[in-house]
């Protein structure tokens, strides 16, 4: 069931080739293409930034900076490292984490918990996604929920709160090797599910 849902999501949520073509056009200075990419990904990038920062105004500043990065550095996109969408999302995530890190470690933990409460995934579809996209998102959420809690926790601490693996080990009072193993295991499971879904 998970693989089937991934396959649907891959077709409808991730038009990778198209995103790459749009990035190429942006690299040629086509502002209209940036608008296309913005329409496709601004909702997601804002969601990521808001989840990380817990502040809408800051999150929108991050999105603004992220799309400016895309505008100026589109020619540096390397397809061998991942899809165009993944590249744009990573830019927004890294921008948000940089801003979060500037607040200090103690504040980050508090902000992270508050942000998670404020922007917790809603069960219903938002106006920005189609029913198919909502289905895809829900199955991804389900995939994450299928992970063991300790594996999901290290992913969330790393991705949304910007802690390094040694900081995660300190927070969880676990050996660094354990944290590394959990991260590898969690991503392997997600990658395998994604790969199986895409191949169907």
């Amino acid at each position: 069931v998970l693989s089937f849902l991934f396959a649907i999501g891959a077709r409808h949520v991730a038009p990778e080739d198209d995103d790459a073509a749009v990035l190429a056009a942006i690299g040629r200075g086509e502002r209209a293409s940036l608008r296309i990419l913005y329409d496709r990904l601004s909702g997601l990038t804002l969601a990521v930034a808001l989840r990380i920062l817990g502040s809408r105004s800051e999150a929108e500043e991050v999105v603004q900076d992220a799309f400016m990065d895309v505008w100026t550095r589109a020619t540096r996109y390397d397809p061998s490292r991942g899809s165009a969408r993944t590249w744009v999302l990573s830019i927004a995530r890294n921008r948000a984490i940089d801003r979060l890190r500037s607040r200090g470690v103690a504040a980050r933990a508090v902000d992270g918990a508050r942000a998670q409460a404020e922007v917790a995934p809603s069960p219903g579809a938002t106006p920005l996604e189609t029913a198919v996209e909502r289905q895809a998102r829900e199955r991804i959420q389900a995939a994450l929920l299928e992970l063991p809690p300790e594996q999901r926790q290290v992913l969330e601490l790393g991705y949304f709160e910007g802690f390094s693996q040694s900081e995660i080990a300190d927070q969880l009072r676990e050996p660094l090797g354990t944290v590394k193993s959990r991260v590898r295991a969690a991503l392997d499971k997600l990658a395998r599910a994604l790969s199986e879904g895409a191949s169907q």
Partner: protein
Amino acid sequence: MTCGDFKEQVAAFALGILDGDERMACERHLATVEAHDGCLEALQQASEAVALMALSLPPVAPSPSLWPAIEARTRAVAPLGQRRRRWAAAAPWLLAAAALVALAWSLRERLWLRTELRVTAARAGDEASARAQCVAELDAFRRDAGLRRDALALLQRPGTRLVTLAQQGGASASVHVILHPVDAKAFVLGRGLAAPSGKDYELWMIRGDRKIPAGLLRGDASGALITAIDPTLLREGAPDAIAVTLEAAGGKPQPEGPIVLVGKI
């Protein structure tokens, strides 16, 4: 870092949780290794898996003012590719301008060099001229010294006669002739032999009625002169008399000008 090491770290690298040194090592590995053993595939797979974290979130509608703000900022800066293309487009003109500047500089340098060479050549010419003059003067001194030495030696030899030419018509020049008829050697010592412009003093050997030209007497700047008489003119022995006339410049085959000095042997 080997490809195996990289793949061990790739999950944490994609998630962005590696500490600074480890992250740099991974970036360096990706940037420097040409033939990877599955590193890029592993990275791509891990990155897509990490992206699921973002895709698990419901999208949030941005405020209406967000796109206009981005669009306004994009008008202030061009994409990197375009900036490169602009440079690339401008490059031929810049190169042409640089070439023109280089050409102008080269021409200026060449002109300067040519002028310098001309000045140097002129200086060299002047120097060569001065050198030649100096050499000539030294040669003259040496010749004169040789002549003086020879004249002195001849004067000290037995049978040598010293003939002082008598000034005629108020002439200011004075000439002595050192003559050895047997050896057919003779030297002329003169003073005040600065002829007027367009004129030359000319020496004559007089044998009976014959007046044999024996050369021009051109003194130096001070009018002094020492010179040898052509020995062939003395093969017949000592002349009857020696005379100096003032002739047109270059001399005459036969005397036409006034006699300024004369001496009987």
